């Protein structure tokens, strides 16, 4: 019952703002309080001016036009919306993806339930966007996407960016049993897929060259025929048709660095194997989960791979599981101190867990991670790693006005989220204000 009420409030709020938006260019000014832009130092008593859903101005001396909608944030904290980089939100619960296969052409967007009822609950904790990928059962499982929690039930409207990265998995045991050889086989299957993609790309290139040559010869032939129609000229032979392969096409994008390969790896050997693959094939590597990363921090730092780390504590996942045997709450602190570019995710057992983004960052801080870096890890750094920092992740002029207003510092678990805006529109407002 309560859930339904929540949805109704959420939906009606959404409709309200939709109709308000339809009236014309809405301007919103958030005034007062402590602004944490994340991209720079905190601004006390600042103003964020929003125009057409984008941040138009930010700072202490911003001229606020007369007829704007004003939001009083004095004594509050204002920051960019939080993002869960390891979310299961909108993913159908029974989703296991297509077995242990190589299926990079799959797209997570095709397997979502946008009507899921937990989304408002997550947004109410200041989370404005989630990154979702195919689950870790396939070796290469398809591409992930960033969605906004803007209350829409239309995936197209929620979508911020698709094809963020192709997700792969090394060394996750399906039945909680482990075999070194089994994990080696997974690694070599991925390697094989990349090798055949290399061959494929070579053939594609060769075909393109041959086609170019053919087109040239064909043009010459047509010309000759036109000038001297009677002379016998040999007609050039068209090369065989090239059949594009969807699997290889996606992996070709990975190998030509258009899309990163995000590899879920927990154990030391699997992490090192992921790095080895990146070294061999030269793709952009995002290390996912990275449970035992703290044991090979130097190797990861040297590889220049970005890390999407989580869960910060195993409480978020079904345990005990072998992958998390050597899990350590200090992992994030140790990796970030080596200068590794790091995003923190919840990696929860269900969609609703995404509401714990700030909590996860706080636990990382308690275990030695720098406060600013931890906040960046759930906003700007995360957006940079996913290639969406032009739109979200910080409060800067020109970016989407995805903003959270809190009663206290975001890393203080007892702070309450007062208001959440997505593209300038209020998607959550706290009712029981004391």
């Amino acid at each position, binding site marked *: 019952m309560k859930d339904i009420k929540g949805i109704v409030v959420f939906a009606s709020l959404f409709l309200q703002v939709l109709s308000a938006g339809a009236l014309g260019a809405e301007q919103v000014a958030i005034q007062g309080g402590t602004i944490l832009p994340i991209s720079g130092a905190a601004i006390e008593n600042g103003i964020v001016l929003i125009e057409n859903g984008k941040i138009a101005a930010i700072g202490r001396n911003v001229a606020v036009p007369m007829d704007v909608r004003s939001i009083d944030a004095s004594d509050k904290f204002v920051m960019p919306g939080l993002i869960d980089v390891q979310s299961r939100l909108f993913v159908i619960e029974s989703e296991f993806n297509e077995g242990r296969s190589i299926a990079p052409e799959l797209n997570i967007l095709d397997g979502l339930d946008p009507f899921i009822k937990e989304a408002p609950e997550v947004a109410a904790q200041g989370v404005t966007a989630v990154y979702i990928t195919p689950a870790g059962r396939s070796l290469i499982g398809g591409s992930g996407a960033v969605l906004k929690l803007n209350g829409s039930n239309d995936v197209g409207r929620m979508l911020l960016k698709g094809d963020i990265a192709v997700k792969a998995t090394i060394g996750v045991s399906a039945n909680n049993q482990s075999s070194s050889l089994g994990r080696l086989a997974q690694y070599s299957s991925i390697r094989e897929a990349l090798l055949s993609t290399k061959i494929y790309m070579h053939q594609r290139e060769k075909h393109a060259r041959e086609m170019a040559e053919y087109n040239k010869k064909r043009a010459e032939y047509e010309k000759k025929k036109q000038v001297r129609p009677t002379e016998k000229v040999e007609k050039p032979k068209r090369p065989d048709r090239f059949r594009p392969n969807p699997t290889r096409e996606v992996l070709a994008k990975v190998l030509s660095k258009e899309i990163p390969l995000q590899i879920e790896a927990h154990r030391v050997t699997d992490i090192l194997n992921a790095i080895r693959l990146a070294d061999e094939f030269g793709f952009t590597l995002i290390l996912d989960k990275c449970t035992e990363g703290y044991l090979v921090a130097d190797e990861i730092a040297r590889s220049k791979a970005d890390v999407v780390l989580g869960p910060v*504590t195993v*409480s978020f996942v079904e*345990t005990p599981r072998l992958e998390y*045997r050597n899990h350590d709450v200090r992992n994030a602190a140790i990796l970030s101190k080596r200068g590794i570019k790091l995003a923190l995710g919840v990696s929860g057992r*269900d969609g*609703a867990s995404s509401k714990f983004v700030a909590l996860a960052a706080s636990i990382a801080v308690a275990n030695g991670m720098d406060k600013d870096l931890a906040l960046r890890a759930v906003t700007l750094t995360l957006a940079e790693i996913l290639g969406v920092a032009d739109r979200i992740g910080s409060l800067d002029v020109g970016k989407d006005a995805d903003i959270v207003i809190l009663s206290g510092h975001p890393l203080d678990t007892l702070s309450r989220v007062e208001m959440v805006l997505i593209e300038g529109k209020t998607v959550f407002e706290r009712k029981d204000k004391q």
Partner: protein
Amino acid sequence: MKKRRFLSFLVILCSSFCLLSSGGEPQTLAIRAGKIWTLSDGVITNGVIIIDNGKIQAVGENIDVPEGAKVLDMPDMNVMPGMIDAYCHIGLSVNVQREIDETVAAVAADMQILDAFNPHSDDVKKALRSGVTTIMLAPGYRNPVGGQPAVVKLDTSKADGWVLKRTAGVDFSVMNQALMFDREPTSRAGLMEMLREELDQAKAYKAEEFNPRREVLKRVVDANLPAYIWAHNVDEIASALTIVDTYGLNAVLVAAGQGDEVADMIAKRNLPVIYPPLLLSSRDKDLRRAGKIAGSGVKLAFSSLAPKTDLYDLRTSAILAVKYGLDKETALKSLTINAAEILGVSDRLGSISQGKDADLVVLKGEPLQLTSSIELVMINGNIVYQRQEE
């Protein structure tokens, strides 16, 4: 500020080296701290704790430090009693859930969980890092009678002295998870009947029969030994209450995730509740339940059920409960003194007061602030964990 922090760190470091190197030598120790959360006498600002022979000799604001005492000066730090995890399964080399329980016999009253505990397990170090100094090591919920939980202090690297109670009670379960298709009971009615039969027979037990299983259950029906009863849903709680009423048991409810819905019934019988970890309850997503139960006057302790959740998150549970409505003081008590009372060890543990064991946690920041790091942990006045910068 930074410099001061560094200095205090140095002081802690130097003095702790002295402490560590002093071995078992009985010695007087004085801790000066910014805030002492006594849990018996409120919060003392800039207070002193005097520890002698592993026991707290005095605590207060203006206390003279005895001559020759080692002094730990920590003006920026908060000190609280060691936290108590009222229900967990650590150190049992468990890789998958089903290994927690022996499910061959449905009534395993004579099984002692301590026999499966590895005192040198890495889990213990992890627990200490989390500020947990005492645990109740317990069987799971898959047997109607699961065995005997133990209360253990986590200075388990010592040869002895760390077992507070080898038999802390008997673990029961009236949950659906105790039903199995290939061994009795297979139904809830069957489960209840089985429990009644066991307890009736225990009631009639005579010492000359010599049956260890009956003997321990006899102590339970005589209310000399607590019954820890697993019950999560309201219907399971109702079943548990039936058993408690029928036999007049001295009982503690374990889990009671939906306990808020029948909180008055639990409160009326004066039953304490050992609450499950808040990050675990993804099915019962309502995080306000813990606060509601405690609000009805039920005494609460928290548990990690580790390895089901990270033992680190025992404190996270309390903080989340506060975020969703639990009173702050009750939350802190639930981590310490209330847990000690529920487990029957409050004569030695749970608060920083005279005569109790010097089991202390030093935090940089307040205990209910999740970002506060655990800097130092002490059991019986000995440092068992000290945080190092990575």
